[in-house]
């Protein structure tokens, strides 16, 4: 049986998304990537990941809108959501935490720290 944890993440900066995928897969996670907020909620409902990593500023559908959707669907509301956002958008972080995100990571970030924080969140649950 596959006991690898699954992370679903939405990040529109394609090179950064690839780096995150590389780093997290190396740490033993299954990764599902979305290049924008579109389809993320459906993806979470379908795949039931162990954690969702959401970039706040994304085209078409932003991370906070997705977060609201995730937290209003009872079958997936328990899945921890971590926000990823630029330093200059700290006010969105407050909003995101109020909406039910469990943690946030500011860009620029250190990839090692990001991996560590994700591992810690998953370990605590």
């Amino acid at each position, binding site marked *: 049986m596959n006991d690898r944890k699954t992370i679903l993440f939405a990040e529109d*900066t394609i*090179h*950064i998304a*690839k*780096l995150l995928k*590389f*780093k997290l897969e*190396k740490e033993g996670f299954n990764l599902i990537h979305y290049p924008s907020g579109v389809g993320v909620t459906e993806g979470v409902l379908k795949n039931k990941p162990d954690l969702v990593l959401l970039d706040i500023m994304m085209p078409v559908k932003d991370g906070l809108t997705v977060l609201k959707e995730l937290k209003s669907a009872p079958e997936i509301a328990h899945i921890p959501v971590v926000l990823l956002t630029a330093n200059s958008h700290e006010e969105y972080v407050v909003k995101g935490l109020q909406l039910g995100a469990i943690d946030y990571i500011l*860009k*620029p*970030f*250190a*990839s*090692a*720290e990001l991996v560590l924080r994700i591992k810690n969140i998953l370990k605590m649950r």
Partner: protein
Amino acid sequence: MFLIIDIDIFTFLALTIFALLILTYILVIQVVLLRLYHGFQTKQQQNFFAEWEGKFFNYLEGNENPAALIKKIGRRKYLYLLRYLREFFLMLKGEDFQKLSSLINDTKLQPFLLSQLKSGAPKKINEAAYFLGLAKSTASIKLLRKKLKSPNASVFLSSALALARLNDSEAVFDILRSARRFKFVSKDSLLAILSEYSDDVCAPLLQNLKREKNVLIQSITITLFRHFKFYQAGETVLKIMVYSQTKEVIIESIKYFAGIEFYEALTALRTLINNPKAEIRTEVLKALAVLGDASFEQRIWDRMYDSEYEVQYNAVITLLKLIPGSEEKISKFAYSDLKDRAAAIARMVLSERSIRN
């Protein structure tokens, strides 16, 4: 002397149409060639990205020598690599960032970029300055400082941005003074550049502000202090504001006091609430929403009858934020006289507030 060619109108028209056809044909060929060239370049770049990706990710993970890695790439593909690294420079920090910087600072990329910076071509200079700044390449500081004197605005801006990212405090005054040479370098673009400095640029800026007479530099400096939440400049800015006749300086000072919560400015704000300039009265009201107390209540109520809409609107908002229980009083006022302008504005604010809540 003119050569007169005797041709009839039909021949003339035929020749004109023929010339236009030839011209159109040349243009179409040119567009097709440009598209092909662009497509080829994009394909080359994508291939390079795909090939480089794995190597780069492994480099970030391991202990590979950056110089050895860069040696594998031909000089003509350096720009592809730099473009690929761009997003990583903006998004990564810590050990990842150190490794990224090493790819430029400890390899042949650095002399390549420095030679680009020395070239006379603005496009090459701008690109080189951009990457040297991102990689915090200190070897480029002297050259970048020279480029601040360039008559070309884009060269000036890219050099200033690089120096700010390199946190070269000594260059900040050259940036501020050189910027005045360019009419279309706006205050906002200059602020965007200067905010790339770290907050330790504030100390030398404060020393300069004490003797600075140029109002634009005063105003930019104070805005930067607000950006960095530099509390130590409070007393100096207060003195400048009290004696200043310039609207921009006064407004930036007020915003700064609110931004750092500098309560020592309250006495000055008490006077400025009646300033003849509406923008200043508005800014005072916004600041009072943060700094003020109940002793300001009557003065703020008076502003609800101001001649300017912006002032009246902000007076209502400030009262709601500042005075506990003021909503009830404002509601009564808002419906006391339906024809009164101040009451109408109060109704509008209350309505907006109810929508937001």
